[in-house]
């Protein structure tokens, strides 16, 4: 066997800082004329197949205060569990979303379709969180409370039910979910390295 060359190290991460909106969500920073809109404004395009849902939440720090300067990115499959770029995926589901946490309340919310189950996994939406004070982006997932999670490769690896619960959204309406993320302390969200 030939020896594989050692891979190069990944470039080091640095915090996104408090002004991340300028680069990633310029309209939130008050820039309306530089680019033609913000990227990730919606994970779906009108006509996407599937059930429309809304997701709202906040991100809490170790004091229990909501982050007012954070950014979340979401990545999800279409109603059949296929991701944009995969053969047969719904062209109306780009699948990528971006939101700032509100500068006064810390709340975020978005409208999307409920993703289907990707092969071998329960339906979920991936979340990536950056903010001032976060040295490297934090990856986690939202799962839905009404699904069977017993075969999901991630939820089944979490050792305590109490911890696994941190990845399951609360149903707050017919098609509405709340997903709060706790960076530290009681109810600390499970973050993923994968």
């Amino acid at each position, binding site marked *: 066997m030939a020896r594989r060359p050692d891979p190069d190290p990944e470039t*080091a991460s640095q915090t996104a800082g408090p002004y991340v909106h300028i680069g990633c969500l310029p309209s939130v920073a008050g820039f309306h004329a*530089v680019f033609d809109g913000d990227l990730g404004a919606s994970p779906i395009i009108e006509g996407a197949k599937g059930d429309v849902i809304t997701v709202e939440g906040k991100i809490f720090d170790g004091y229990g205060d909501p982050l007012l300067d954070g950014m979340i990115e979401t990545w999800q499959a279409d109603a059949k569990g296929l991701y944009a770029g995969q053969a047969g995926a719904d062209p109306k589901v780009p699948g990528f979303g971006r939101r700032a946490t509100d500068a006064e309340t810390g709340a975020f919310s978005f409208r999307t379709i409920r993703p289907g189950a990707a092969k071998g996994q329960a339906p979920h939406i991936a979340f990536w969180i950056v903010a001032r004070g976060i040295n490297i982006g934090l990856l986690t997932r939202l799962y839905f409370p009404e699904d069977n999670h017993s075969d999901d490769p991630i939820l089944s690896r979490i050792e305590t039910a109490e911890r696994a619960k941190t990845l399951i959204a609360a149903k707050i309406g017919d098609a509405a979910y709340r997903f709060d993320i706790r960076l530290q302390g009681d109810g600390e969200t499970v973050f*993923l390295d994968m």
Partner: protein
Amino acid sequence: MTGGGLLPRDRAVQPAALTPEYKTSVTRSPRSPLLTLDSTVTEETGPVFGHDIIGPLDNDLINNFTQGASLANGERVLIHGRLSDQNGRAVPGALIEIWQANAGGRYRHANDSYFAPLDPNFGGCGRTLTDDDGNYRFMTIRPGAYPWPNGPNAWRPMHVHFSLFGAAFGQRLITQMYFEGDPLIDLCPIVAAIPDQRQIDRLVAHLDMSQAQSMDHLAYRFDITLRGRNQTMFENRPEGM
């Protein structure tokens, strides 16, 4: 992008979540260990951004805030480099977004109260897609250093924030680029969150006179490496090599 799963992220070359000298990290860092698992299709796929989203001035921060009407103030610099993965392969068609302070060290943002004035001709955001060989370029002005409330007389070195997409959501990375020769780099607790000096050195862009333009601008080179894929072996060679 096809092929194997993502290479596990080497946390030894990345900053820890908790780095107390950078004070805000104390309350924003998880205390439990990360759950480490092999990547799945969720992390191995990612958003695709087409050329239709990119305007002609998007990578020109000297001109884009006024859409070419007036030039931003400051030392004109070209920042360029190559985006590759850990296997050394170019990452083409990748979205790079940057943001930065103006020449006086002030951000155009409601939360920045530093008294250095805003430049009416400078916004501070840019974006581009890498070309077929993974190369990118931005025209901008060198941002100023600025004070911040991390401790007494704390200053950030001159820096440009970089946000990077590969082909996979699991390659997502945000970092900061510094400028060769800036003595504030060694004093910065955000930089010092990186545990490996070689990794810090890789965030420092080098003066590149080969791309400087006489009577116009200087140039700095900044190459970036994203996570790679496990390579499947084919006849004792990594596939595609």
